[in-house]
Structures are given as C-alpha cells and as structure tokens.
C-alpha cells in the first residue's frame, strides 16, 4: 500500500507538468496577438516590440514555457493584461469565494443525496425508490444555469424572499457569516448542489442495495441485531465510497462553477474567467484555469490516498 501511495503521489508530478503545459498553450491557440487588447490600434512598432519583450513573447516557446512554469511554481502567474494587477492576487481573492460556495453546495448535495439514496436503496423497488431515482435523474439532467434562473424568478422576483445576485449587501465588501451575507449564498448553493445530489443519491442507492444483499447482513439479522444495528453496519460499509464520490464532486463544482457564478454574479473564479475571456486577457485566463485544475488534481489525489488508507478492503499494488 505504501508503494501504491508513493507511486500515486509521484505520478501527480508529470500530470501537473502536463496540465501546466496545456494552460500555457491556451495563449498560443488563441487567435491574434495576445497584446492586442492593451495596444492602441496606432501603436508604434517600437512600443509593440517593447511590450513583446516585457511579456516575453519574443523568445522561443520552450523558453517561454520553462520561464512561465518556474515562476508559476513560485506563485507568480504573471500580470493581468487588462487590469495590470498580479494574476495570483486576483485569482486568490476569487478562489476563496468559489471554494466557499462549492463546499456549501457539496455539503447540501451530500446530505440530501445520501438521504435519498439511502432510503431508495433500503426500500428498493418500492414507490420511495422510484421517486428518489426519478429525482436523481432530474438532478443530473437539469441545465443548472437555467435552474438558477428559475429559482431567482421564484424566490427573488416573485416571492422576494432572497436576493438574486451578488455576495453581500451593498455590492462588494468583506464576507461575514451573518444572515445579511449568508442569504446571498442560499440560491446559488442550492442550484449548485443539484448535480452532486443526483450523483451521490445514485451512488449511495447502489451501494446500500449491494451491501444489504450481502451474506453478512443476513448473518447479522439471524444473530438478532436490531434494524438500527444493521443500519450502522451499512453506513460504515458505504461511507468510504460515498465520501470519495463527494470529494470528486467538490472538484467538479470548483471547476464548473462559472455558469452558476454568472447567473448569480457571484464574485468567484467563474466571474474572473468570464471577464478574462471577454477582455481577451490571456494571462488571467491561463492563471485561473491552472489554479482550478491544480485544485482538481490535488483533490483527486487526496481522495485516492484517503480512500486507500481508510478502506482496508481496497487492495492496491
């Protein structure tokens, strides 16, 4: 197992270099000159060359990559072309907001997903199971950006219970865990939780049904264990896989939050990506994607390591 873990951790290094190279390539597959968005149309050739040099676009690609990667390792993701500020600072500020929202959504999705999945798996083929399974199909099929709009229509525009957009009263400002701020998170977090809820419900249903069909459960029943006792056994057996799926879902939400953040004007990485794309600010796009992908890779690694160490049934060589 130790060897597996070591190999797994070491294997993350080439993956990360590959991911970084992909992010680096993004600038080069984008059509047109990356400096076009800051240069005035009548810029002199000298000014153009000066800026090319400043951003390093005049050197061969492998040098550019090595240079860029080395600085990225030190936390320097370059300078945003549109704002002139450091990309790292901008991304770090936004990542906090995205992380907060995604964690909340994963938590909601996990709680309700395991609840539905558990009930469905326990009363398999009953009407409860059918309703829960139907809900989970709806959960994975709904275009979540549309669901966000519908929730805004119902709870903001019609009932006026909750704010529609933003992350706090009066536009910007620091986040705080009071109702004045938290109410801004309710709709986006619920919207975001729908996909993990559906996926976790499906997983838990299959797990519970599988476990209940195993012989040791019959043995426990024969031994005279109460339903509660059996329930605890099922939970213990289902937990590692369910938690692993939850971890992966958090990673997907972090990377996929852009659509929901756009609907709710949530000031996270999605918002940053959006402005980077439309201002053709390639360093910002590159940096944000790199940070989010790194989160995803590290989260995957953590899930794998935790699952291997926690679940003695998993044999890895």
């Amino acid at each position, binding site marked *: 197992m130790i060897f*597996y873990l070591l*190999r*797994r951790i070491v*294997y993350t290094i*080439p*993956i990360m270099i*590959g*991911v970084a*190279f*992909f992010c680096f390539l*993004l*600038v080069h*597959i*984008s*059509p047109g000159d990356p400096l076009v968005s800051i240069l005035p149309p009548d810029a002199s050739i000298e000014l153009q060359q000066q800026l090319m040099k400043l951003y390093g676009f005049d050197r061969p690609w492998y040098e550019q990559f090595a240079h860029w990667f080395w600085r990225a390792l030190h936390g320097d993701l370059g300078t945003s072309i549109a704002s002139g500020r450091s990309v790292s600072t901008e991304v770090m500020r936004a990542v906090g907001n995205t992380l907060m929202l995604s964690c909340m959504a994963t938590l909601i999705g996990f709680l309700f997903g395991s609840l539905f999945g558990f009930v469905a798996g326990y009363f398999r083929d009953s009407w409860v199971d059918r309703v829960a399974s139907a809900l989970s*199909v*709806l959960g*994975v*099929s*709904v*275009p*979540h*950006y*549309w*669901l966000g*709009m*519908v929730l805004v*229509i119902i709870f903001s*525009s*019609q009932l006026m219970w909750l704010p529609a957009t933003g992350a706090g009263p009066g536009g910007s400002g620091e986040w705080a865990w009071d109702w004045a701020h938290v109410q801004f998170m309710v709709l986006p977090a619920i919207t975001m939780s729908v996909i993990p809820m559906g996926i976790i419900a499906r*997983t838990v249903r*299959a*797990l519970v049904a*599988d476990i209940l069909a195993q012989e040791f459960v019959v043995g426990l029943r024969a031994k005279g264990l109460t339903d509660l006792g059996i329930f605890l056994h099922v939970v213990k057996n289902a937990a590692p*896989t369910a938690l*692993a799926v939850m971890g*992966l879902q958090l990673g*997907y939400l*972090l*990377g*996929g939050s*852009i*659509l929901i953040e*756009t*609907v709710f004007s949530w000031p996270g990485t999605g918002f940053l*990506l*959006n402005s*980077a*794309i*439309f201002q053709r600010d390639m360093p910002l*796009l590159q940096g944000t*994607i790199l940070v*989010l*992908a790194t989160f*995803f*890779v590290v989260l*995957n*690694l953590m899930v*794998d390591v935790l699952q291997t160490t926690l679940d003695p049934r*998993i044999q890895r060589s």
Partner: protein
Amino acid sequence: MNMTSTVAGIAPVPAAAEPVERSPGFWSGVVRKLMRDPVALGAGAVLLTLILMAIFAHQLVPSDPYATSMLKRLKPIGFEGFPLGSDELGRDMLSRLMLGTRLSLFMGITPVLIAFVIGSGVGILPGYAGGLVNTLIMRTIDILYAFPSVLLAIALSGALGAGIGNALLSLTIVFIPQIARVAESVTTQVRGRDYVEAARASGASPFTIVRVHVLGNVLGPIFVFATSLIAVSMILASGLSFLGLGVRPPEPEWGLMLNTLRTAIYTQPWVAALPGVMIFITSISFNLLSDSLRSAMDVKS
C-alpha cells in the same frame, strides 16, 4: 461498486465498460427489450418529435422567427399572435424555440459523434497494442482528464474565441479522452479473451483481429457510454452559448436565448425560462434513453 482506479488514478473508468460478446440475434434482442420498455419508448418519442421539428422547422414555424417588432417586445404567454409570448426584440418565442431545436441538437450531438469516432480509435489502438504505446497515449489522455469537463470546455472555447466551430471543437476535445478511456479499458479486456488468442495463433494479422474480433465486441459498450454523454453535451453546448461563447445572435439557440432573456426575468419571467425547459426536456430524454439502452444491453440481467 467498481472504484478501483489504475495508478493513473485521476478518476475511475466509468462503469458499464464491459465488452459485449456479439452473438446472433443480440441486437434484435436489445431492440425487442427497448420496445417493451415504456420509459425508453416515451423518451424515444420525445426525441423523435424534436428531431422531426428540427428537420421541418422552416415548414412548421407559425411565423418568421427573425421578424422583430419594437412595439410587441416581451409579451406574455398567450398574447395574441404569440402563443408562447415574444422575446426582448419582439420575435415570436414559439417559432424561435422550434427553429432553435436545429442548432441546439446539432451543437449537442455532433461533438459526441465526432468524439465517438476519434475516441474509439484513440482508445482501441493502445488497448490492443498494450505496452509502451498504451503508456504513451493513455498518459497523455490523463492530462486532459485532469480537468473538470466544464472547465476544459470553457478554457478551450474561451481561448479560441466565440463561434459555432470553436464551441464544437472544444466540446469534442472534452469528450475524446472520456470515450478513449472507456474504449481502452474494454479493448484491453477483449484482447485477453480466448477467441482473440485463437485468431492470433491461427495467423490472423493484427488488423484482421481488430476488424473482425475486437471492433464488434467493443463498439457496443463504447456506443452506450457515448450516448450517456449526449445529455451532458447538450447542457454544456447550451451553456457555452449562454456564456456568449457559442452560437451568435440572431440565430436561435436555446442557451443563447436564455442568455439574452436573462434581463427579462423581472418583466416576463415565464417567457424567459422557456428555452431552459427545452434543454431540460431534451437532456432528460437522452439520459433516460441511454439508461434504458444500457440495461437492455446488459446480458447478465
């Protein structure tokens, strides 16, 4: 639950990637099972209607989907002459939703189709060849797999710029590694089967073995997996247009329509939500049909 991942370990290969041994009457059996499945029939009927609507959109629309009217902007559902209301430029919603079926279905299905062809090739080759070829190709694919799909799609189409072609290209690149992984895993399983060994022993060339013995048994499961991606692709493709990265105005496409109507959620909320209903119906139907197809092809049950 199959959660054993390889050392690659970025994510486990999706379930349902078992080779299907081809036997006489297998496909007619699958069709017979589907015909007896009310869910599959319902979902199939909805999709067939949508496809017919897409093909005959120009003959079916009640009015010109492009005709604007500044006086009749954002009219409610049931307004005279606008059965489903009108959009922010006074265009007939019903006609635009109907014509929108064309681009929305096209944008959702095409990337999966292309990725099915390319991804199968990219996956079957290393699956059959094994060894160094396998390591090289599959580890490269792992890198693309290290991105969440939404992020990868947005990164690519964000860098390439808005447009139908770029959105299709980005989505295709998103789905190739997913399909290739399934293809590789099924092919690796088939490669070890007795009939492949027998063919090799009797002197069949690798090309013949792949064509005769491998393809027939792996394409089915890969296809089923690909169909499960169509719903995701529909949502993602419309999502790209929703962000302004896909179809450009004034063409009707459901994601783009949602985007342009977003400002109308306070004035005409239910009209603004309509394009999303279409995306939802389409993606549920694809999901249900794909689930039914999977269980119909599951020989064990």
